[in-house]
């Protein structure tokens, strides 16, 4: 049905021209990001309220997290935003090779982030501080968490897993989108006139990064460690 109106490559049937299509695509992703803000917003609200209720437990929980890995991941993710921005730039300039290289670099950095996150999750399993599944901390960890009450410490780790887990899920979706972009770029779909999918995916990727920029201080830094 999309070939009723013959138009330039990439133009869908409902649009008059590529400019209208490009504006529409970008507005669409911005509205989508607003819904994402509201989605994460509910979780951040709940986190803020319980942090206020049970500050000692939340601070104790925060101090158990591995700040080195968290900081490394922050750097990795900011780096991936840079390579993502460079991919959009390459697409705008019509540099296909550079576009593919930067997209793959972004994917690699995303993969590194998820790998490090996996190591952190693994540590939590080893320490028996996975809420709901295996929450029975022992030894030093127990001594550290016990004063605030284990239930409340478990809530902290529930938020840790829920927030970073949802964030990681968004990263995985983003990497899937990047893979599609790489394949399409190899096929030569994009040109300086038509690169909206790259830009739209880029906006999504930056958004996911920004979520982490908030998660990192909330979960790792403001725990009374410094």
């Amino acid at each position, binding site marked *: *049905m999309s070939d009723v109106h013959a138009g330039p490559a990439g133009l869908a049937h*409902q649009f008059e021209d590529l400019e*209208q299509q490009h504006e529409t695509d970008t507005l669409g992703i911005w509205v989508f990001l607003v*819904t994402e803000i509201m989605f994460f*917003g509910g979780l951040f609200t*709940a986190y803020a309220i319980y942090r206020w209720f049970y500050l000692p437990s939340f601070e104790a929980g925060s101090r158990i997290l591995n700040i080195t890995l968290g900081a490394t991941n922050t750097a990795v993710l900011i780096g991936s935003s840079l390579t993502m921005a460079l991919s959009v730039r390459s697409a705008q300039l019509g540099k296909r090779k550079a576009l593919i290289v930067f997209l793959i670099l972004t994917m690699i950095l995303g993969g590194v982030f998820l790998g490090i996150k996996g190591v952190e999750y693994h540590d939590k399993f080893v320490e028996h501080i996975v809420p709901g599944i295996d929450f029975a901390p022992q030894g030093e960890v127990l001594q550290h968490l016990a004063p605030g009450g284990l*239930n409340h410490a478990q*809530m902290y780790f529930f938020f840790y897993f829920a927030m970073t887990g949802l964030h990681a899920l968004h990263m995985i979706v983003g990497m899937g989108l990047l893979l599609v972009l790489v394949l399409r770029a190899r096929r030569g779909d994009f040109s300086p006139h038509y690169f909206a999918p790259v830009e739209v995916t880029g906006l999504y990727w930056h958004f996911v990064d920004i979520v982490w920029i908030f998660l990192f201080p909330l979960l790792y830094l403001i725990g009374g460690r410094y």
Partner: protein
Amino acid sequence: MSSATLEPRTDARVNYLNADYGWKSWLFTIDHKRIALLYLASITFYFFIGGAFAVLMRIHLIDPQGALVQPETYNKLFTMHGIIMIFFFLIPSIPAVLGNFLVPMMIGARDLAFPRLNLLSWYIYMIGGAFTLYSLIHGGVDTGWTFYAPYSDTYSNTNVVPVALGVFITGFSSILTGLNFIVTIHKMRAPGMTWFRMPLFLWSLYATSVIMVLGTPVLAITIFLLGLERIFHVGIFSPALGGDPLLFQHLFWFYSHPAVYIMILPAMGVISEVIACFSRKRIFGYKIVGFSSVAIAVLSFLVWGHHMFVTGQSVYAGLIFSVLSFLVAIPSAIKVFNWTATLYKGSISYDAPMLYALGFIGLFTMGGLTGLFLASLATDVHLNGTYFIVAHFHYIMVGGAVMGYLGGIHFWWPKITGRMYPDGWARLAAAIIFIGFNLTFFPQFMLGYLGMPRRYAFYPAEFQVLNVMSSAGASILGIGYLIPLIYLIWSMRYGPVAGPNPWGAKGLEWQTPSPPPTENFDEIPIVTEEAYAYAKEEPSGV
């Protein structure tokens, strides 16, 4: 409105219905009009399931001791009635059916901005519905449609997780539809279709979409947390584990109060179209009616606390929520007064859509005014949790939203199918629905005021007369809903051919053939007039 002159069309013309045949042409369609029909069939299915639960409840309540089912079953009946009617009928009703069909046509576009996303919305809706049906078959849920914690996350022994998952998934269908409408209305308008030339239906759908996009994600994350808590037994909302049940209510109503406006705003848009057409007048105070939709959308996010006056929320928060709730009455009243002013000295004809519109104005006014009782702190303490609440929100949602939906279906049916329905039956059904509705729900105001609590399977014997009246009304209402189902299906095959504009209505959608071609317009129209230029029309031109 368009510059193109219309030539007479023959019925044999290719349109969106006969362009292609076979189940694939429907299930893989990206045509907004076909997707609208997919929604129409699905929500009608859910409407009659939800209606069946209501019938069972009303039969049960004929007797003070309960005539039909066990109390546990009764709890499931009102829960499933609420969940199905709200999430699977009312919220998608006007936006996903009439909105899908009309938004591109009214602004002069070939399709929505994201046609594939639109089809995806329908599939998401169906998947969410499947989870809900699954839980229904496996014994249902008894938490009430509000899923209040800690009952839902700790104590209920019913299928909370599948239903919660169903509601969670369906929410994304609503989000994506809202997103599609917002972007379409911003970017796809035909040349000359300025914001203040748009039909008011689009203003109301735009406001609705804003609520869908901002509110629904919050419900999604709330339900998500509730599900995690139920599965993993960690404290989020359950006080036994350190959680706060009030937080659940805050998050839930942050979406679910605006959701009331998701249901009523589109109906208000339909009423504006119908009133203008059948009074042959431009709507009185076009801009203020349009802006009142936006005002309702904004205020809708600031009033959720009025559901929590008696739950332990601070008194000062209660005061502020009370005042803000009263403010919603202003844009709502503006609409009612402006519709009435539109009728004044109009050339009114009483076709079926107009009967629904007039019914809407009366019933919505009743529902709105009784809302003020509930927005006042003191009277709410008495009325909260009684049948007064039940009557109030049914006046808004059934007397308002369903009347608006049926009015809209009758108004645009000739455009959607190209056929007319039997006028006499349609007017009769509208009258039956109006009478049955009032007989069902007016006694419930009295029951509630006398103190009968909602959600109980038994009641004291002195309430029996009013309950029997209500049940009798429900049976009349049920018949009223079955009649349109029959004659509308009948009309698709046997109804007289309607022609492009049977009502002599304004608006771009009436300037293409009925049913419209797949691409809506042969040429994208150029708009040179305001939305309701009825005054300029010579009577002979109709």
